[in-house]
């Protein structure tokens, strides 16, 4: 075991994959000389040179589109978008191009590209630098949507993303970057579409994404003190969705909370809750609960921001409400 921050774990995954495969190239804003706005590519420019670790101009549509062209012609580009909000600046290249080229070409082409980009509120970054875009992009067939929780998960899932032959949107959580974790000395790729039961329980299932996995585990510890046994599932990828693991858990507990930081409306919770209604209606002992960001733009002031975003307490309270 060793201690690494989440950002360092991502950096290690990039480094190890670049070492392993010379077709892996990374580009984005400020990723080279300063090693990334969130320090996720420190030292890579020095090690691999500026054709493989490319500082780009502020041209998100341009360099994401270049990534599509690079992927079509034999490279494995890892594109960093400094904030997931900027996916909207590059939306045509992500949604109309990368996601659809394989399909539109009748299977001739593949787009092995990763877009790494941070989600999440909590830094007083206001409405254009705090959004969680995972539910929005999950609408579009052709993309894989990954959301690592811990540093170990980030390293293992990023390796899988880079080796995958489909376009992957890899959502990191910006509040995790500087957090220290104990991780294994060697981290193998973690397969997509296999949710991880991080805590077993029998009274309620909490399905969570990204940093809300850790918040759900904290909530589960509090719940245990109240005599409530919560099962916590780290979803890892929302596309592909490991619905079976959720289903089996809900059949056991009879209760479900879905915790995801994106806005509540048409979100991951809406999707999973609906699928549970379709497939496990008679197993439910309570309505499915959701913990999300409410349907308001992310505000700036901490006095406005923290009260509205998902928290340990909100997950805890929702669980108590459903189990009571």
């Amino acid at each position, binding site marked *: 075991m060793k201690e690494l921050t989440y950002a360092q774990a991502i950096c290690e995954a990039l480094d190890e994959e670049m070492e392993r495969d010379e077709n892996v*190239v990374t580009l984005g804003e400020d990723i080279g000389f300063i090693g990334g706005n969130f320090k996720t590519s420190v030292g890579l420019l020095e090690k691999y040179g500026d*054709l*493989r670790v490319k500082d*780009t*101009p502020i*041209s998100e*549509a*341009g*360099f*994401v*589109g*270049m*990534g*599509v*062209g*690079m*992927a*079509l*012609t*034999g*490279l494995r*580009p890892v594109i960093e978008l400094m904030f997931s909000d900027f996916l909207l600046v590059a939306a*045509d*290249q992500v949604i*109309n*191009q990368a996601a659809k*080229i*394989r*399909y*539109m*070409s*009748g*299977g*001739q*082409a*593949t787009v092995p590209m990763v877009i790494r980009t941070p989600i999440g509120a909590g830094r007083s970054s206001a409405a254009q630098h705090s959004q969680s875009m995972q539910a929005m992009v999950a609408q579009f*067939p*052709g993309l*894989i949507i990954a959301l690592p929780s811990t540093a170990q998960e980030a390293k293992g899932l990023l390796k899988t993303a880079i080796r995958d*032959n*489909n376009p992957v949107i890899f959502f990191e959580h910006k509040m995790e970057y500087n957090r220290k974790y104990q991780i294994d000395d060697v981290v193998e790729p973690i397969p997509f579409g296999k949710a991880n039961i991080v805590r077993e329980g029998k009274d309620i299932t909490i399905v969570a994404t990204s940093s809300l996995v850790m918040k759900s585990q904290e909530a589960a510890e509090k719940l245990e003190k109240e005599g409530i046994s919560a099962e916590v599932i780290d979803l890892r990828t929302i596309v592909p969705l490991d619905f079976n693991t959720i289903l089996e858990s809900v059949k056991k507990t009879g209760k479900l909370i879905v915790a995801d930081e994106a806005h509540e409306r048409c979100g991951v919770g809406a999707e999973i809750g609906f699928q549970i209604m379709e497939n496990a209606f008679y197993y439910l002992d309570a309505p499915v609960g959701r913990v999300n960001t409410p349907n308001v733009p992310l505000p700036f002031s901490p006095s406005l921001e923290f009260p509205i975003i998902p928290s340990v307490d909100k997950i805890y309270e929702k669980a108590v409400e459903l189990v009571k």
Partner: protein
Amino acid sequence: MNVKAYSKDQLLTWYETMYRMRRFEEEVFEFYKQGLMPGLAHLYLGEEAVATGVCSALNDNDFIGSTHRGHGHLIARGADIRRMMAEILGKVDGYSRGKGGSMHIMAMDKGILGANGIVGGEIPIATGAAYTSKYKKTGQVAVSFFGDGGSNEGTFHESINMAAAWDLPIIYVLENNLYGISVDTRDVTNTPDLADRAIGYGIPGVIVDGMDVMAVYEAAKTAVERARSGAGPTLIECKTYRWQGHHVGDPATYRKRRSETEKEDWMARCPVDCTRAEILAAKKAKVSDLEALEAAVNKEIAEAVNFAKESPYPDVSEAFEAIYTE
């Protein structure tokens, strides 16, 4: 046209390619008129000299990115016209097994990175192919075709800026056919020559008569040499004109507002007919040579039409294939 400077073989190759595009598009138009075509198609009629001239300056392993008006580019790169026609009719033998249609024909085996339904959408993609070439030192060049409309998209600026900064081996071919559907480029842009924009990127900007296949070839050849040598991109503006409307269902009546005879004036400069006449006038080939070539192309086109008509429609299960790969 400087016909005298070129060999008979070269001249006949250009003529044959343009004639094939012409006949192909005429048959596509027929598909529409006969109600055989699902949706629409954007015809390249009148612009044949551009794709022909540019692609004749390329090697077989080079890349091109194309547009919604892409049939000509694909034919110039040697795409299989039977599979193109089948795709346009939504048939299972089409390049995309009926899932892409006219606007999304891709032929990876010919370095064709795809026609594209989004104006300006393919410009950064072709630029990425040029990046691969530079990174892997393969010596390949990329060509990005787009129109006057595409040149007003942000991707035009972003892509050329990066390609120029990093000396990427790419040629940006701006087919200025004067209209974005009905909007006259001259009403929405304050410079008559879009090639002037190259100045802002520190690269050559060349204006070419897009009706003259030889002029287009010469400009492309210079640009390809520059790109292959590592000196970076070139912007080539080809002044051209689409004979038909934006798509097969567009009567294009809007084009009379400047001149009653605008279309006829351009059609008088037909690249296919003018090249034919010049070849004959310079005695580079005999009428019988050209007629034999035309007969062979007509036969090939007729076979492609039959192939497309006879190809079955895909089973509905095809809709669920090729979304992801292993």
